[in-house]
């Protein structure tokens, strides 16, 4: 692999758009293929590029059938899944780095300066805005998980409403069964149907009797991953 090609791969990964690298296993020549172009020193035919694009769409890396001796290896790169955490609370301090370790892009939204102040969230991206504005900036999609942790309806409810209007694959809200029942009533008052609100996992996380912030973060993380894989099936 040429140094320039490695740099190109890293640039494209940072751009968070899907693409694939194609490597001739015999010569080591390579090209990078995305929606709009193919760059590199490996010449690919139009049908080969179509095959690669189908693999990008299906997130399917592997050796491609080809007349080339040794074959062509296609490595598909998808942008990471995202987790939006509302509330820079104690549990967020455990959940954010955990999600990052699991490969997620993590954003924490909290309008309260004191909760986001330097050091509390280490190198996690924070948006110091009210959840309405914060969620607009984040624009959750089908590869985003939204977790609300503030316990405060003023902060949690608008975030949950924005999440329900999105295709987020996971929505979770911290709070007891009683708190959650009250939350569902408020959301119903905002016009959400019971089918809508059934998307919200509350109480949040797998039931492993988690007690500490770290343990609760584990239970949330496990549930998010479980849902992500179930949706991908």
């Amino acid at each position: 692999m040429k140094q320039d090609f490695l740099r190109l791969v890293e640039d494209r990964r940072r751009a968070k758009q899907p693409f694939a690298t194609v490597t001739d296993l015999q010569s080591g020549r390579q090209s990078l293929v995305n929606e709009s172009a193919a760059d590199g020193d490996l010449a690919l035919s139009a049908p080969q590029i179509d095959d690669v694009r189908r693999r990008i769409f299906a997130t399917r890396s592997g050796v491609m059938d080809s007349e080339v001796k040794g074959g062509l290896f296609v490595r598909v790169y998808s942008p990471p899944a995202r987790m939006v955490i509302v509330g820079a609370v104690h549990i967020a301090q455990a959940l954010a780095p955990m999600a990052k370790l699991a490969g997620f892009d993590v954003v924490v939204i909290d309008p309260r300066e004191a909760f986001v102040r330097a050091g509390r969230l280490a190198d996690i991206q924070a948006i110091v805005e009210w959840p309405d504005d914060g969620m607009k900036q984040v624009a959750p999609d089908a590869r985003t998980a939204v977790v609300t942790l503030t316990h405060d309806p003023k902060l949690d409810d608008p975030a949950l409403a924005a999440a329900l209007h999105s295709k987020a694959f996971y929505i979770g809200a911290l709070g007891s069964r009683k708190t959650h029942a009250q939350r569902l009533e408020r959301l119903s008052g905002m016009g959400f149907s019971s089918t809508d609100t059934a998307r919200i996992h509350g109480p949040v996380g797998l039931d492993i009797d988690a007690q500490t912030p770290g343990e609760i973060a584990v239970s949330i993380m496990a549930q998010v991953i479980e849902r992500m894989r179930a949706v991908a099936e």
Partner: protein
Amino acid sequence: MTASVHDPLNQLSLWVADGKKAALATVIATWGSSPRPVGSHMAVLESGDFSGSVSGGCIEGAVVAAAQEAIGTGRPKVLEYGISNEAAWEVGLACGGRVQVLVEPIS
């Protein structure tokens, strides 16, 4: 953020930017049960330092040695390992799979 010590491509870029000689190992095919999926990366430095993985730790040592050799020759190579050999079975690592790994020196 993709910048992470757990991201072998990122580590590889840092090494290369430092002017160090390095190689990239990538799982290109698997058969049966194998611990790491196709596309998994491991970056290897000339000294033998490595980041990432191509198995559950069963073949990393051998891949590091092959990567060091590839850094020397400057040519890419496809390696194949059957994880389920008798020695592996004895130490409880018999995943029963087979993997192919592409090793590419960075030039």
